[in-house]
């Protein structure tokens, strides 16, 4: 960056290097996940080892025959095997005295559904690694099917609206809180609208991964699946934070704190009105969603108060 800059976004201080990805990769135009992968690569640094699985990230994270789309070492495995394969890697590196940061990078479908057991097991054993879930609230690569991260009311290809159907009829699993209950050193939520906050959390996770399991849950809209314009991913992230739909918090050694204050939260409708997968929601359905958002926040606030951390980040 040239000297003449009037100012430089603070997040740039956290970049270790240029991202290690090829300039032209097959992510949709406006895909938040593309930003996520490149961002993680820049902030965590080129020496990390990715563990990936079939997902939206796979066509870029995994190679094709002998060629690859980036310069990070990576291990590709089944969706059921992410937490466990990463455990095998990190355990061997410890045995052999090799310094390495193993970074699992999966969507919500893997973390919360089919790969949950292996993730939970790895966390309970406090394996030394970073696990990043990019939450696009569904199985996007396979065609926008619902996952346990899909919110109440959302239209997906397996919970479509129709003559009778009104989208998904249950709320989503509060995954970051579930992970926080595993007694691990570090859990945090992050949003691609708040990059400095995210960068700090990545840096912290990298440190924490030297002693145990660090979990990050990142809000990651899907342009195609959520039916939003290609330019809107970051704005949707911002709206999610400002409506408390996706609060930004961290848990360090059992202490919870909000990392982004939201003094005048907007109603969740401010988010849903811009996101096509919610457009069919009637007032009473929005109320249900609002109640879930409110309840989650109450749980979080109670945990923050109970653990009474001295400072907010």
């Amino acid at each position, binding site marked *: 960056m040239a000297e003449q800059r009037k100012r430089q976004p603070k997040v740039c201080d956290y970049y270790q290097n240029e991202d290690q990805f090829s300039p032209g990769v097959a992510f949709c135009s406006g895909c938040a996940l593309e930003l996520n992968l490149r961002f993680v690569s820049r902030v965590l640094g080129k020496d990390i080892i990715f563990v990936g699985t079939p997902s939206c990230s796979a066509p870029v994270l*995994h190679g094709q025959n002998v060629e690859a789309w980036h310069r990070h070492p*990576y*291990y590709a495995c089944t969706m059921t*095997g992410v937490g466990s394969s990463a*455990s095998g890697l990190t*355990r*061997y590196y410890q045995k*052999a005295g090799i310094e390495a940061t193993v970074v699992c990078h999966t969507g919500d479908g893997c973390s919360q559904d089919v790969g949950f*057991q292996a993730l939970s097991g790895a966390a309970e*054993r406090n394996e030394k690694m970073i696990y990043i879930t990019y939450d696009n609230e569904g199985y996007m690569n396979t065609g926008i099917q619902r996952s346990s991260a899909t919110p109440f009311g959302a239209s997906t290809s397996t919970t479509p609206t129709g003559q009778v159907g009104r989208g998904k009829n249950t709320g989503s699993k509060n995954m970051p809180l579930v992970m926080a209950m595993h007694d691990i050193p570090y859990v945090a939520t992050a949003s691609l609208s708040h990059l400095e906050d995210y960068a700090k959390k990545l840096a912290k996770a990298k440190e924490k991964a030297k002693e145990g399991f660090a979990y990050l849950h990142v809000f990651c809209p899907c342009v195609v699946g959520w039916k939003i314009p290609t330019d809107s991913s970051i704005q949707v992230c911002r709206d999610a934070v400002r409506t408390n739909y996706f609060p930004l918090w961290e848990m360090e050694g059992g202490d919870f704190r909000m990392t982004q204050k939201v003094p005048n939260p907007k109603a969740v409708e401010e988010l849903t009105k811009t996101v096509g997968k919610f457009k069919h929601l009637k007032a009473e359905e929005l109320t249900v969603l609002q109640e879930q958002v409110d309840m989650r926040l109450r749980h979080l606030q109670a945990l923050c108060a109970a653990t009474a951390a001295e400072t907010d980040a």
Partner: protein
Amino acid sequence: MTVASARETKVLTGNGAAAYAAMLCRPDVVAAYPITPQSEVIEQLAKFHADGVLDCEYVTVEGENSAQNVACAATMAGGRAYTATSSYGLVYMYDAMFNTAGYRAPVVMINVNREPPGIHAVCSGQQDMISVRDSGWVQLIVESCQEIMDTTIMAFRLAEDYDIQLPVIVNYDGYYLSFLAESVEIPFQQEVDDYLAVLKDQPPRPVLRPGVPLGCGSHGMGMGYVELRKKHMAAMERVKPKLEEIDEEFERAFGRSYSGQVEEYRTGDADIVLVTSGSAVGTARTVVDAKREEGVKVGLVKIRLFRPFPVQRLSEALKGKKAIGVLDRSIAFGWDCGPLYQETRGLTPEIGIVPMLSFIDGLANMDITEEHIGWMIDDINEAAQGRPYQQVRWLP
């Protein structure tokens, strides 16, 4: 159990022998989940680990699927890895087994044979081993506690051989071997180190390292996929002569040989042969001897290497016989016979059309007795005389 400091003979169960052998091979990472009749293997390894005798990362995983993935990834990072399971656990790790085999990861796994889910049975049976026969793994099956000890050591030697690079299962019958105590001679640690030392002098295989832009598990596109499958098949074929070589090396190092892929017992001048595997071989040897006393010229072939199937060695052993019986401790769904029988039948181009009888016995801990084997030999004899015979017979 204390650690032997010299090559002594101890009374060990099959599970104990398996644990001892694994410990002697110095795995870097051991990952396993308990399941009857395997549990004592991993308990004994945990005790070795807790006593500082086994210097490894011992990963108490939350399920067998994870155990397999831990082991595979550890080998892809450059380590030696071991796991053990049985039946339900084996089939639970099925997706991970394809991953391990496809990655050509040299994982060594003990499978203590037990009946798989569907008809709940905590009992011996070989259906579990059969159910994973097309996963791309090398499979061996053994007869005694000593053979468990010895074959585990050979399995590491085989799996990590540069020409092979395949995962290996060592199967043994649950209950009949897992909990049977026999006298087992335990090799010195130094002897095992020396036996496996040749693996260190090989060209290095690719491994995952920070800062090195290698990726494990790239998409196989088009001919790339086909090429890798062909390479895998070729490696499987190389297992057959390699196992013979390894067995000879083992005999020179430890004084015991198992005759490689198959063992022939009194087949030279035999008119009829019984083919089987696992713990039943021990019983069959006794009955073969008894029948020989009665003048029946019967021989026994023990299948030790199940995958790859020992086509050439088995054909040589069976050629020219008047009738053949194959004893299975499992069934081949859809073929109305036993699986080893089904595969032995596939040797018709090599051995010609010969009366071949399938015996299904020993399911769910229904003992394969000397009496049963006597009946089997009688049936094979009937067939050899040109008299009518039943092609498939279920026992008891």
